[in-house]
């Protein structure tokens, strides 16, 4: 990272004025875009501490423009003074939150398990199912990526009603697994490709079975890739709205659906809306910041050779 850039400075030191201009431009652009990225988040978080007047007058800076208040969080039952009282809104929120956690973790785990196995098989062995060879099977899996949710939504609505999976978390987990499976297979194929085959050959010579070699030798090496795929899958599942809005009503409703249905009879309570939105984006924002390395690894898998 640091090695690559030395030649820039060498050539640019020759003209200090140009160097300074380019610095100003680069940092100006960086700071501008950082502002574009951060301001909506800042707005969301601060709005959750505003009262109605502060929202409608467009006050921006806490303590200067307006006095922060726990109003938004109180309406969710999550402010310091209401956290120990019973609150139906909080129960509702926690239920939706748990639904989101369970569906996204469940779907990502399921997709990682069956996706990694399939990716490993496709990378290491030659298959022939009828006239389908490895390339065709890979293409079959990856082509699911272009399938738009609308195509599946209505058939699934009918089918899920028939098999009693409508408005259940399992139903959502299965659909989300389907949704992220191509991405997981894409990432994991790349991962397994980078593991030298000699390792497994040695393990087989030492008497491990095929599956033993996979679990004891290959999996530990591919673990970072699995984490990357898992996190990317988590992000997609957590933010999914379309299927959740169509296929859930009371029991399995997830956070995005709850956020989208926040219009009351007296318009929108911005403070509670903002608190809810903050709670909805916080888990992924934290994961994104903490595990950014894996996310980038997942997104760039296979794109750069």
């Amino acid at each position, binding site marked *: 990272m640091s090695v690559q850039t030395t030649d*820039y400075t060498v050539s640019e030191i020759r003209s200090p004025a140009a160097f300074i201009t380019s610095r100003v431009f680069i940092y100006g652009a960086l700071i501008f875009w950082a502002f574009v990225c951060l301001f*909506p988040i800042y707005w969301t978080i601060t709005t959750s501490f505003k009262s109605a007047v502060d929202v409608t007058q467009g006050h921006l800076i806490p303590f200067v423009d307006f006095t922060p208040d726990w109003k938004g969080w109180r309406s969710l039952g999550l402010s310091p003074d209401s956290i120990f009282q019973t609150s139906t809104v909080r129960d509702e929120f926690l239920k939706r939150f748990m639904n989101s956690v369970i569906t996204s973790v469940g779907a990502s785990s399921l997709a990682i398990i069956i996706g990694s196995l399939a990716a490993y098989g496709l990378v290491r062995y030659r298959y022939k199912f009828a006239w389908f060879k490895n390339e065709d099977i890979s293409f079959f899996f990856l082509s699911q990526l272009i399938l738009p949710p609308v195509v599946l939504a209505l058939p699934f609505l009918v089918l899920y009603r028939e098999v009693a999976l409508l408005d259940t978390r399992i139903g959502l987990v299965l659909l989300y697994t389907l949704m992220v499976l191509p991405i997981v297979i894409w990432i994991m194929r790349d991962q397994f490709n980078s593991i030298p085959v000699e390792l497994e050959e040695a393990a087989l010579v030492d008497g491990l079975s095929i599956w033993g070699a996979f679990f004891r030798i290959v999996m530990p090496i591919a673990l970072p890739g699995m984490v990357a795929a898992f996190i990317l899958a988590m992000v997609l599942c957590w933010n999914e709205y379309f299927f959740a809005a169509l296929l859930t009503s009371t029991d399995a409703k997830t956070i995005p659906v709850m956020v989208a249905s926040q219009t009351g009879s007296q318009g929108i309570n911005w403070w509670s809306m903002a608190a809810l939105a903050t709670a909805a984006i916080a888990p992924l924002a934290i994961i994104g910041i903490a595990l950014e390395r894996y996310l980038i690894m997942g997104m760039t898998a296979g794109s750069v050779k």
Partner: protein
Amino acid sequence: MAEQTSTANAWPAHPADLIPTGRKRLGWGLLAIATLGLLAIIVVQILYKTEMSTVGFDTWRPVVYAYILWGAALGAWQVLTRGEDGQRALFLLPALLFTIAMVIFPTLFGFYIALTDWNLSSFSGRRFNGLDNFWQMLADPYYRNALFNMVLYVLAVLVEYVIAFGLALLLNAQIRARKFFRVVFLLPLMLSPVAVSWMVGKSLMEYRFGPAATLARHLGWDNPAFFSDPITARISIMMLDAWTFIPFMMIMLLAGLQAMSREVLEAARVDGATAWQTFWQVTFPLMLPVSVTAVILRIIFKLKLADIIITLTSGGPGGATDSVSSFIYREYRDRSNVGYGTMLAMAYLVIIIVFVTWLLKFASRFVRNVN
């Protein structure tokens, strides 16, 4: 079904005839029982649902369980009859059976629904009506409008690409706090589009008090209504969607930039090329394969665009911002028109498949010609 040739990596394979006949017979027996069981449950269920028999289950759930058991039996059959080859097939089977069950069957079923007149809110129930939905679709100006909007939305990807490339170049330049900027630039991708469209689209860009509207007034736009006239509304939706997805392309392009060999750039510099020339004649051509991958993936995601539109404008004003997905969503949600909605979705699927296939062909030829 799995006829597997020996592996590419030449694993020591057990010849199939080393497997005792008893074991083979067990495998075949298992598979036969499982298949018969699955078929039996399906038949019983069909008879029950068509009221030709009184024995059966209330829902089709047992068929799902039977399918899972059948899948397990299929795996066992592979291992029992084919030994190590079977064990290899076992890697692929779960994902294959899962995807087939979750995609093929619903899609076929979807094609059938598309040929019916089925409104959930009417009493008449499902009625086969052939291609009526199709003719109705051809005459539907709103669907055509939604398709036209999709063309605009897809074209917006090019603008997103330019911005993403710029950001990737910025992050790749010699800067301080690179990690900080990278994390910050990545953040929008993490955020739920629904929460974003509420807090940005409905609050930040709100006509009266939103800071974005205030800023627009200061910049001289008297009437900063972001969602009231068709063209501005479309641009607002594009901007919001771009905001969430630019990091995705940016990260891929950044990885491409970092993987580029330094010697080439060095050589260009030594030859006296200006930064501008270096970019157009070295960096950009070298980045073309990565760019194409990023743009195509982005277009594929763009074709699914729905949630922002559903929450923000519901397709308004007058259908100006409708994407195909959001239009079909409302066809179902507001009008319960399952048959017609599915026909629209299926037509969209066909269009997408044709378009993406063409895009992939075109892209590979494009990359080959340039390099």
